[in-house]
């Protein structure tokens, strides 16, 4: 008998503000313990919260990016519980009136199994709300005590809650990846998962087809896509095994242990579910005007999905290329910048980015964001390929050489001048003078009479041999197409 898997995600994204959500303390990562824990962060008696505009702007940006309803009025509420990393004894969050209402995100799922094809899926977003992060508990050397660092306390979070629309670990991971890419794309979160900027809680349940939803367990704080995949796989199997062995699933919060690959229930808090939410009397309702919303909309970059469509429609790229080129904002920006300089050659540019550039980046373990040659420089190089000044082979050599010298030109005219100067000084121009090529071909034919005879008697494979010799004789600069034509003609006799 089969099982259906039902998965929903709650993702905590740390917003990339300079300061905390309710105070002017820095949110920079990695500071010495408690040096960024100001009076509000440590909840001194008498201190009060004031909302950070930057956090609200980022929330609105996200809402617009997923086509969600932006609440004209939303409310901050207190979620009350005691924990050492929660200095006020309550977390300021949003409860029944969140800033971002229902929206949706289209994801591209690449199934793990065999040769199943990638497919698109729309995941509904229930809501996204602003809240403050907690501090960190540090388990130090001293026996029996825990240290508390409140530097992170008060860092703005946008908690993005999805509907339980995913039905496999692959879909869950695809959704998380798409969200991760989107929040970085629109510049609201640095997406650094090691530093905890993007943390996923995954709700998992299983059921027989047609039956009501099963009891869910929540896997907390997954901070890598690999762990997410492993944790869901383990959890699903555990739930199925438990039920098939006659057991029952109890609602629980579980942690994933990357060392064992297993999930285990947290020590349950007896009163964990009575948070006594009520509107925070220290904060007034957050009003977002239509005007403000539209101002923010105007700052939104073209979103990945729209861009993907445009690449396919306008540039005639195939779906695979379009997906790769829109997999991150940096990648798309690189491509767009190159196309801006050389609008006639999007396909050529795409090929080079996904071919040579990607290979070199991979070799040197670099990201496109810190590529040693700029998009403008690449456009300059490919301009000379497309106008037949140099051939592809030469272009690759120029790129290899430039790679080690950081060619970061921002202006095409300068990049072009530099490339042209190199071509000129090293004599890299391809030879398109048919007389010169004919001369080379004649010499080769004369010097290799036996092979010519073999070729003429039907050994077509030898054509490559002649091309190689001719190229070598031209020091790699012969125009390949022209060379082919002339060779063919002359070999035919």
């Amino acid at each position, binding site marked *: 008998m089969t099982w259906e898997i039902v998965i929903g995600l709650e993702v905590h994204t740390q917003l990339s*503000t*300079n*300061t905390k959500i309710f*105070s*002017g*303390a*820095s949110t920079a990562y990695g500071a*010495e*313990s*408690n*040096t*960024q*824990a*100001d*009076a509000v962060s*440590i909840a*001194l008696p008498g201190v009060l919260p*004031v*909302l*950070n*505009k*930057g*956090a*609200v702007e980022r929330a609105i940006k996200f809402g617009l990016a997923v086509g969600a309803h932006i609440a004209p*009025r939303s409310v*901050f509420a207190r979620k009350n519980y*005691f*924990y*050492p990393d929660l200095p006020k004894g309550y977390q300021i969050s949003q409860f029944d009136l969140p800033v971002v209402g229902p929206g949706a995100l289209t994801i591209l799922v690449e199934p793990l199994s065999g040769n199943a094809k990638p497919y698109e899926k729309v995941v509904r977003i229930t809501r996204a709300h602003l809240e403050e992060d907690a501090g960190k*508990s*540090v*388990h*130090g050397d*001293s026996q*029996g*005590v*825990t*240290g*508390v*660092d*409140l530097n992170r306390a008060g860092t703005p979070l946008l908690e993005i809650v999805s509907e339980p629309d995913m039905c496999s670990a692959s879909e869950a991971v695809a959704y998380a990846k798409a969200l991760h890419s989107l929040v970085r794309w629109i510049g609201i979160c640095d997406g650094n998962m090691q530093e905890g900027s993007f943390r996923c809680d995954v709700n998992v349940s299983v059921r027989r087809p047609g039956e009501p939803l099963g009891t869910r367990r929540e896997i907390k704080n997954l901070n890598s896509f690999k762990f997410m995949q492993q944790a869901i796989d383990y959890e699903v199997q555990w739930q199925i095994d438990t039920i098939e062995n006659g057991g029952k699933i109890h609602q629980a919060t579980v*942690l994933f242990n990357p060392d064992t690959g297993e999930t285990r229930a*947290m*020590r349950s808090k*007896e*009163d964990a579910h*009575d948070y*006594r939410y009520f*509107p925070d*009397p220290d*904060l*007034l*309702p*957050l*009003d977002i005007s239509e005007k403000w919303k539209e101002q923010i909309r105007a700052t939104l970059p073209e979103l990945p999905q729209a861009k993907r469509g445009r690449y396919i429609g306008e540039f005639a790229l195939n779906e695979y290329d379009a997906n790769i080129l829109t997999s991150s904002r940096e990648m798309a920006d690189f491509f767009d910048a190159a196309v801006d300089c050389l609008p006639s050659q999007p396909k050529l540019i795409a090929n080079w980015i996904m071919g040579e550039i990607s290979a070199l980046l991979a070799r040197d373990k670099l990201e496109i964001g810190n590529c040693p040659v700029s998009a403008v420089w690449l456009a300059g190089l490919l301009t000379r390929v497309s106008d037949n000044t140099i051939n592809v082979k030469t272009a690759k050599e120029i790129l290899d050489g430039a790679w080690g010298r950081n060619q970061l030109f921002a202006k095409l005219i300068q990049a072009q001048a530099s490339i042209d100067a190199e071509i000129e000084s090293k004599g890299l121009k391809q030879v398109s003078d048919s007389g010169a090529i004919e001369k080379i071909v004649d010499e080769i034919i004369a010097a290799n009479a036996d092979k010519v005879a073999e070729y003429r008697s039907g050994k077509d494979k030898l054509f490559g041999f002649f091309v190689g010799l001719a190229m070598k004789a031209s020091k790699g600069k012969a125009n390949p197409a022209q060379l082919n034509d002339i060779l063919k003609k002359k070999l035919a006799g």
Partner: protein
Amino acid sequence: MTLTNADVQKVARLARLAMDEAEIESARSQLTGIFNLIAEMQAVDTKGIAPMSHAQDLSQRLREDVVTETNQRELFQSIAPQVEAGLYLVPQVIE
């Protein structure tokens, strides 16, 4: 309304207040008195009335995203019950 000692105990636990049997009993009788006072409220018809959370109907003012605070750890931790290496210390937290 009548509160049971178990109700009181549950609330005391939520509020993190240690109470012995005698304190629970006395809290129960006093809270019962107070809840009888509050019960007067229940009879009022409030259909269609919006709850009032604030004295003025205003909206939240926003702060520019600019760092204004400096490190005052030494001063703040000089009044802390237990600190070590810049950390506030508490009995071990078990997850």
